């Protein structure tokens, strides 16, 4: 019994988060388009649903609060109360409070709802109604004959007597009657293939009528189980690879054929399993809408946010880690990018700023753009600022792209005054770090001074698999992500020079690149120094700076499934994970950039030591 209750509560919390996110979306919609019967109806249903389920699983605090809120919503629905900005604000705050309550419950803590806020809501409900006791009667007469409203009216009938006396019985039953159908309808809206940009745009303006409800039954599966499945499939793929490599040894033609067949099916299964982790960007994008609203309000600007391609699907991990960078880019665009109304009019633009957040596929990658029609970036100003801040020196020669990328340098902020919202100097560097380190992606900046800036985030489809280059160094195999490899060359002895204080340098088509040995960078002693006939240099270019890393040999190119190493190895810099190679042996995935950054001085020492030996 207890366990069942706990399970139910867990499910409720997941569901509640979704309901609240949807509700927030709807509230923001209201603010944009004024009174909108369908939206109000939608919010009302969401609130009602939340109340019902909360009570059913024993979260009375949430139930009570939602009940109060529901009464207010009912009045709005019945046009008893106008949807004035203060009311919408109150609704949003209530929504926030509920989100907090749910989050607290998720963390396994006790909750108490905010009595002051509840009172505020209750006051607002009472505010426009002269006689509370009469309200229930007046409500029931104009009620449309839909199930939902009838149910709501029953609730409203209970209201004047107070929620304490609200009997336990109706709530769960209401929930059973209407509960299950509601969230599905909402989720379906989310899944409606309004994939094309135009569609989404229209949908954003008219939320309910235009959407076609497509029935697609779905079940909720825990991420843990999914990950276990994906893991096992990964192993299956490896075994399958081994099997097909050995298939020539099988005498029976029939068995050989079966192995090929098995290979095909395994590939299909892998593709499907990878797709299981994909979730749409909808929730993340919705959050941005709220951020734009709050930020513009605080700054007194008027900015429209346009969302495009919010149905684009991404790996769950990617979506989770994308939130922070997007928040920073959006805030930056609202705060710094888009001018104030006066400035815009002076520049001959419309007073309303326009911000576009779009997502889509391009060439096997996911592209996410944050585009504003603001003042754009001025390379000379950024450069001057960077010199002032000591990020670069006066003599450094940088391309325009490089200069734009200085925005992402830690401790850089082009605005002199620190505002409440952004400009604390911690903002944009998070974007670069998150996108490049955690997401294996790239950030590009395009700007036209005077007419706007576009920040483009390019991400791989999944983090679980990378294209890797398998190399051997000092007898061990390592995987280098192919995205890090610019080129690989086999250096001639005459190309390799030694410079005191710098170490070994490789001359590549007239350019001198610092040269490191992979095994030295990793602190592994090479077994025999001489047998290096196959020695190959991997050239890595990161920004303007390039370097090369010597390995004994490049074994090949392979798609590898990234495996997490245990916590006991979590702090090793330069090693991003493990991978299981075709023969079933594990290998480490190395991040050469990280290794160089960490071991610059150490590599020099080793290079000298190596020279001493040679």
């Amino acid at each position: 019994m207890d366990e069942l209750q706990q399970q139910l509560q867990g499910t409720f919390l997941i569901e509640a988060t979704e309901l609240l996110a949807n509700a927030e979306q709807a509230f923001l919609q209201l603010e944009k388009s004024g009174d909108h019967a369908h939206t109000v109806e939608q919010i009302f249903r969401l609130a009602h649903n939340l109340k019902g389920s909360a009570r059913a699983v024993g979260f009375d605090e949430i139930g009570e609060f939602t009940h109060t809120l529901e009464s207010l919503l009912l009045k709005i629905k019945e046009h008893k109360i106008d949807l004035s900005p203060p009311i919408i604000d109150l609704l949003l705050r209530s929504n926030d409070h509920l989100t907090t309550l749910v989050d607290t419950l998720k963390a396994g803590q006790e909750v108490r709802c905010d009595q002051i806020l509840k009172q505020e809501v209750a006051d607002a409900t009472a505010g426009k109604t002269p006689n509370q006791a009469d309200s229930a009667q007046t409500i029931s007469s104009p009620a449309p004959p839909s199930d939902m409203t009838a149910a709501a009216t029953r609730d409203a009938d209970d209201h004047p007597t107070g929620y304490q006396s609200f009997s336990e019985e109706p709530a769960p039953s209401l929930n059973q009657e209407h509960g299950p159908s509601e969230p599905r309808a909402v989720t379906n809206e989310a899944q409606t293939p309004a994939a094309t940009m135009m569609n989404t745009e229209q949908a954003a303006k008219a939320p309910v009528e235009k959407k076609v409800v497509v029935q697609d039954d779905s079940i909720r599966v825990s991420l843990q189980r999914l990950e276990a499945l994906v893991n096992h499939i990964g192993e299956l793929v490896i075994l399958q690879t081994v099997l097909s490599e050995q298939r020539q040894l099988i005498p029976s033609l029939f068995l050989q054929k079966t192995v090929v067949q098995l290979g095909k099916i395994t590939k299909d299964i892998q593709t499907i399993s990878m797709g299981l982790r994909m979730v749409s960007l909808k929730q993340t994008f919705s959050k941005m809408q709220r951020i734009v609203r709050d930020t513009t309000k605080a700054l007194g600007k008027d900015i429209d946010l346009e969302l495009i391609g919010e149905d684009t699907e991404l790996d769950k991990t990617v979506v989770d880690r994308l939130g922070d960078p997007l928040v920073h880019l959006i805030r930056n665009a609202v705060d710094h990018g888009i001018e104030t109304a006066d400035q815009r009019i002076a520049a001959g633009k419309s007073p309303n700023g326009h911000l576009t957040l779009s997502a889509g596929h391009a060439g096997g990658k996911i592209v996410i753009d944050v585009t504003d029609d603001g003042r754009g970036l001025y390379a000379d100003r950024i450069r001057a600022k960077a010199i002032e801040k000591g990020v670069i020196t006066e003599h450094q020669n940088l391309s325009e792209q490089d200069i734009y990328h200085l925005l992402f340098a830690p401790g850089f902020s082009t605005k002199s005054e620190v505002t409440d919202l952004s400009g604390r100097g911690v903002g944009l560097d998070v974007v670069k770090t998150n996108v490049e380190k955690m997401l294996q992606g790239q950030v590009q900046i395009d700007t036209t001074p005077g007419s706007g800036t576009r920040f483009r985030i390019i991400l791989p489809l999944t983090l679980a698999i990378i294209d890797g280059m398998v190399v051997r160094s000092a007898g061990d195999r390592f995987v280098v992500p192919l995205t890090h490899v610019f080129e690989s060359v086999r250096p001639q002895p005459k190309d390799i020079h030694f410079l005191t204080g710098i170490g070994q340098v490789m001359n590549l088509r007239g350019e001198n690149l610092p040269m490191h040995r992979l095994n030295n960078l990793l602190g592994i002693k090479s077994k025999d120094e001489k047998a290096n006939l196959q020695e190959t240099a991997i050239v890595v270019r990161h920004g303007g700076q390039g370097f090369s890393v010597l390995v004994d040999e490049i074994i090949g190119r392979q798609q590898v499934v990234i495996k997490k190493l245990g916590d006991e190895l979590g702090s090793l810099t330069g090693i991003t994970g493990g991978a299981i190679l075709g023969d079933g042996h594990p290998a480490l995935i190395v991040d050469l950039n990280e290794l160089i950054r960490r071991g610059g001085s150490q590599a020099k020492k080793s290079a000298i030591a190596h020279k001493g030996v040679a």
Partner: protein
Amino acid sequence: MSKHESKTELRSGAERYLAFTLGAEQYAVPLLSVKEVVALPETTRVPYTPPHFLGIMNLRGQIISLFDLRLKLGMKADNGPESAVIICDLNPLSFGVVVNSVDSVLSLFKDDIKSKPEIESKIKTDYIQGVTQRQGKLVLLLDVAKALSIDEILAIKRNAAANLAS
């Protein structure tokens, strides 16, 4: 599993331990912390780790770290035909430990377990939880977390930090 003893004793109220041999000594760990026992796998070295960190191994698609307790405790690490790896599952850590042989499952009551002999020693012995007797031989009850992980994680982190600093 082993020629020493493969009979499992079952008594209610007792806690069960997996007994194994390290060098010439008998040790045991709580059975609940043992996920499985596998044959000695091939390992891949990991840079900047202490000597008794043997590397990483492939456990049916999962990569886990492999330690050699014998090196840690200052014994010789000779592997014989009976050598095996005990996969310990100490939430959230999961790792393998090489042992000379896996012997039996003991079920011990509280009063079967004596406190360890107190001796003046510079070597920390807090990884020994207690001592019990099996057929005239002493069996040391091991706290693997203490014997390895906590120390080791710190050591590895220190190593990494030292490398970062240098």
